[in-house]
């Protein structure tokens, strides 16, 4: 079959599932509900807010696009896109597989790199709305969206003005909407510390 299949609703009557072999076309539907395996050699495009449900596998050689993609079996596509949620137990690149729990909990929830000296510059960030320079070596990282609680892990590393000495980082206060931390230099011979600006580099990462 060549071309594009378009239907408001397509449901196979048997548990054997539904296969659409259309190498040159796509399958476009409002929703897909398959009791068996659904497969397409083209792309599976579920229009608008439609969903894909399958008690078997969902397979497409092209792109799988839907609001929600849920299958009891394996979901396979070159690209799987959802404007809402893709629910899966595992995720794989075809060679390596990891649990979705690992992917969700193991990924950084926010990070930022910045310098605070003559050029107060944020280099790159994710999940961070701003960094406030409160005093010498004293910073507040403000999150774009506040966390539900303060049970998160934050790590920081910093370098001083010339890049010739590293700084010690310490957390001052942890809130759901921001974290306050300090960077210190160490006068090692006397054991005396004082705050010092991360004028060369500062990186801050949050895991939750």
């Amino acid at each position, binding site marked *: 079959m060549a071309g594009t299949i378009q239907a408001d609703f397509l449901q196979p009557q048997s548990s054997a599932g539904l296969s659409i072999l259309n190498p040159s076309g796509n399958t476009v539907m409002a929703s897909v509900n398959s009791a068996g395996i659904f497969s397409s050699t083209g792309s599976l495009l579920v229009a608008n807010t439609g969903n894909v449900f399958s008690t078997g596998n969902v397979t497409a050689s092209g792109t799988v696009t839907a609001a929600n993609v849920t299958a009891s079996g394996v979901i396979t596509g070159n690209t799987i896109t959802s404007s809402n949620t893709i629910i899966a137990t595992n995720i794989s690149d075809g060679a390596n597989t990891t649990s979705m729990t690992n992917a969700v909990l193991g990924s950084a929830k926010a990070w*930022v790199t*910045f310098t*605070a*000296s*003559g*050029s*107060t*510059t*944020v280099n790159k*960030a*994710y*999940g*961070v*709305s*701003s*960094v*406030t*320079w*409160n*005093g*010498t070596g004293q910073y*507040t990282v*403000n999150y*774009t969206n506040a966390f539900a609680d303060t049970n998160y892990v934050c790590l920081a590393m910093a370098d001083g003005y010339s890049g010739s000495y590293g700084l010690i980082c310490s957390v001052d206060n942890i809130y759901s909407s*921001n974290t306050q931390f300090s960077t210190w230099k160490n*006068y*090692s*011979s*006397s054991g*005396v510390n*004082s705050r010092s*600006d991360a*004028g060369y580099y500062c990186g801050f990462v949050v895991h939750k």
Partner: protein
Amino acid sequence: MAQVIIHTNSNGGVSVTMPTGELPIEQVQAKDTPEGSIIIDSSALPQGNDVIYFEAWELHGSNVSVNISKAKIIHTNEFNLIAAAAHQTRLSNTAIGLSNSTDDTTWSNNIVSMRNAIANTTTISELVAIGFPKP
């Protein structure tokens, strides 16, 4: 030029908030800074040696300037820490048979001289030029 948000903090100094670009700066101002904060170009902030004395910055209207009296206190505190560290290094050098830059009397007199210079300075550039003690 990037814009930043500034406000006078609880220590009487200036806090500088740098937006990351994830949200519009006006939204960051409302969310991350207190009422009364203002948006300025970062180029309007003190530059060069003035940055060393960040905690001596003061906000007057929309202008940020360096309070030389506060800067002298900051320099003195740092001076004392470095002097103490240098003194420890001198003691260690003596204990392990290494030579110091000067004899103890000359070194102590130099410390006093530098401290007096800090007290008498009137500009940031003079303050920076005084520097810090070495072992």
